[in-house]
């Protein structure tokens, strides 16, 4: 029990420290509003990429329509905060929950029939579904503002709120993975037939995993709407789903921490390459090819970086090397 508390403590401390670091940098004026915007969008992308990683990396189902779920969440939150007037934080939390539920519901609608498909077929269906959502938004002009977009959404979140939601999402996902439900979902990725043969209701857990994935994507979308204050269907094109996918592949399918690192890295890369937009996708492509050649399962593979476990593992590795060295000498 003591060890458990210590492990949680280390992680909690790390979160607080990283938050303080962020604040200190901001107060000292080292980053301006523009950079702050970049950081916020990076964090939102990470949230949605994590949700995509749940569907592809943990559940093992190819999903290419997460921009669609994000759009559902974004428009739900946007319309909600435009329509009602509650105290700031209550309204924000309600908007995020609603955004998640709306996206989760659309996840169920697509997931229940589509999860019977495997691999490429599921990818194609989810891709089509993402586009369907976009066109629905465009054609519901009276409600959503159509192609010209949804304007004048009240600003409800800033860096702090997005950071807190990001931390909550990451914590939630980690705790979820290490529970019996998370294990059941991972077992489906590993071997669906075997999972079923030891009593995992695979259909239920596929739909459930997909729901959670869509829910988190919706929350990310909600944050996006309330930060950006302006939504267009253009943002949620298929290419955006692909960009999210690149983050996941880059970090390693099945590794949440990998997604976080890759999200940060790619956000800054994109920013640096802002002036050369045409070259950006070429550089992405080259990086992906190199990654596929030299480390085909992404930066972290299926491993997680853990403040508690990783130092232990490194220590073990060192000891092993030392042993081998000693043997070599003798």
């Amino acid at each position, binding site marked *: 029990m003591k060890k458990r508390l210590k492990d949680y403590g280390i992680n909690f401390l790390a979160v607080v420290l990283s938050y303080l670091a962020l604040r200190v940098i901001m107060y000292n004026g080292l980053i301006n509003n523009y950079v702050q915007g970049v950081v916020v969008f990076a964090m939102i992308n990470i949230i949605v990429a994590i949700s995509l990683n749940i569907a592809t990396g943990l559940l093992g189902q190819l999903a290419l329509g997460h921009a669609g779920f994000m759009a559902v969440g974004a428009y739900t939150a946007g319309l909600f905060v435009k329509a009602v007037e509650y105290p700031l934080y209550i309204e924000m939390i309600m908007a995020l929950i609603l955004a998640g539920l709306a996206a989760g519901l659309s996840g169920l609608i697509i997931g229940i029939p589509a999860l019977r498909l495997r691999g490429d077929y599921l990818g194609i269906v989810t891709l089509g579904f993402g586009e369907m959502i976009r066109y629905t938004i465009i054609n519901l002009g009276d409600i959503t503002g159509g192609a010209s977009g949804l304007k004048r959404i009240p600003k409800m979140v800033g860096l702090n709120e997005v950071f807190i939601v990001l931390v909550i999402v990451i914590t939630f996902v980690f705790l979820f993975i290490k529970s019996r439900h998370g294990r059941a979902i991972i077992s489906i990725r590993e071997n669906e037939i075997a999972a*079923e043969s*030891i009593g995992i209701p695979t259909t239920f857990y596929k739909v459930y995993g997909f729901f959670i994935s869509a829910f988190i994507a919706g929350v990310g979308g909600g944050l996006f709407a309330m930060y950006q204050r302006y939504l267009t269907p253009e943002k949620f094109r298929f290419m955006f789903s692909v960009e999210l996918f690149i983050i996941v592949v880059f970090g390693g399918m099945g590794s949440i921490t990998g997604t976080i690192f890759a999200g940060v890295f790619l956000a800054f890369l994109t920013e640096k390459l802002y002036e050369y937009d045409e070259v950006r996708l070429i550089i992405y492509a080259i990086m992906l090819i190199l990654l596929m050649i030299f480390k085909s399962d992404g930066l972290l593979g299926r491993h997680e970086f853990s403040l508690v476990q990783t130092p232990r593992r490194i220590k073990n590795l060192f000891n092993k090397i030392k042993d081998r060295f000693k043997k070599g000498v003798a």
Partner: protein
Amino acid sequence: MSLLETKNLGIAFGGLRAVDNFSINIKEGELLGLIGPNGAGKTTIFNMLTGVYLPTEGSIYIDGKKINGKKPFQIVKMGIGRTFQNIRLFANLTVIENVKIAFHKDMTYNTFTGIFRLPKYWKEEDEITTKALELLSLFDMENDAENMAKNLPYGKQRKLEICRALATNPKLLLLDEPAAGMNPQETKELMETIHFIRDKFKVTVLLIEHDMNLVMGICERLVVIDYGMIIAKGTPDEIKSNKKVIEAYLGS
């Protein structure tokens, strides 16, 4: 009373009758072998018993309860565990995680309890960790608990699969060619393991096997099928001298 009973079980894939009129009775505690030439329909029978295939005719009873039409995970709950001919482990998970997943159906905490780590979570998780380690140590694998399943040597992978099936606490264990790809020494060990499982866990075993030494050595009763139909039943000695069986295996 018989633990497993099938009555006129049959399945047809289109026009092909893969299994026809398959009726057996397995008593509690028995060690029964199912043999037959390649393509005779043995694995198909396993797949029907575990709910992977839906039989087109006949019925299956376990403990007197009808199970056909039920989903595989429901059948696991009713007490049938299985292993596969081609090993199906959760390759990228650790050995102990492989076993822990199999305890899923015995656990009751919900997602909320899981995420907020309420006392019930710790209680159930600690319980299955202990149980999983106990189970692994029975197979001398407790030192491999933190290794990846895919890094285990072949024989241990087979053992782990059996171990995982046992974690679901089955009354009837179906083993699909457990000795496939093993050398004589490993096969011998496996025979001991199977005996040990049966005595220790009071589990009934139905196994498919090609290795005649293994089958004749441990099975009390054999059922031979060919082209989807039962051609002989009896003790190993009776089967050895059965004309039809010799024909099926050697050709006439």
